[in-house]
């Protein structure tokens, strides 16, 4: 299953880089979203995939019985998802502002620092 997921993550990375290299600013945003998904999945996959054993301690027990999924990458990814969202919101609003000021969505036209 890890092999399959590694291929999926590879495709996600390729797609996100392709989209970020486009000149349209909206495509750049789409690329960013795919990239953050790819990065989250990357951490999730390389830390090991476990089916049906969430890192929860059952009621009436003081510790887990048997192996559970690694909780640490999950905590990392959880914060990463929320941060990625707020950064995305920031980027999107920034792009909107830039479009209003510069009057184009073509990144090749947005190369002067003081327009």
């Amino acid at each position, binding site marked *: 299953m890890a092999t399959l997921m590694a291929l999926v993550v590879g495709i996600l990375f390729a797609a996100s880089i392709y989209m970020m290299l486009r000149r349209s600013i909206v495509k750049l945003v789409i690329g960013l979203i795919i990239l953050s998904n790819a990065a989250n999945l990357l951490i999730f996959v390389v830390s090991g995939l476990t089916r049906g054993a*969430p890192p*929860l*301690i059952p*009621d009436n027990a003081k510790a887990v019985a048997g192996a559970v999924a690694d909780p640490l990458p999950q905590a990392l990814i*959880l*914060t990463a998802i*929320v941060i990625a969202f*707020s950064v995305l*919101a920031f980027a999107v*609003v920034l792009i909107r502002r830039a479009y209003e000021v510069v009057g184009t969505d073509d990144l090749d036209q947005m190369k002067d620092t003081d327009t």
Partner: protein
Amino acid sequence: MRTSTLILQTAALAIMPLQLMFSAFLLLRGHNEPGGGFIGGLVAASAFVLYAFTFGADSTRKLLRAKPQDLLAAGLLLGLASTIPALIAGQPMLTAHWWQLPLPGEGYLKLSTVLIFDIGVYLAVLGTLMTFVIGLMEVEQ
């Protein structure tokens, strides 16, 4: 942008309180079951976003009572405040503390700095998202 239909308005009014209750439930059980401040905050934010799409940004502001930025600030302050008991007790900052308050009758209320911190996270997430959404909707008008 008051374009919503009667059906949506009715549904929103019915669903929203449920969502808010669910978010509080997720927040409180988060320490033992899937849930917690992040997820609770996101659910609460979804509830208000639904309301905002149905009734507009102004009514959402009224419903929230506080400004979204104030919610955010309160969340950050609660997060910081949760570190203080450890300092008072002379332990390293961020050491967790638990208290058990007896309730009338059988049970007792389990309180902890961790819970305060989780509420802080909840409020910070809610405040941030509402700042985004309400701010953007107001600009569109």
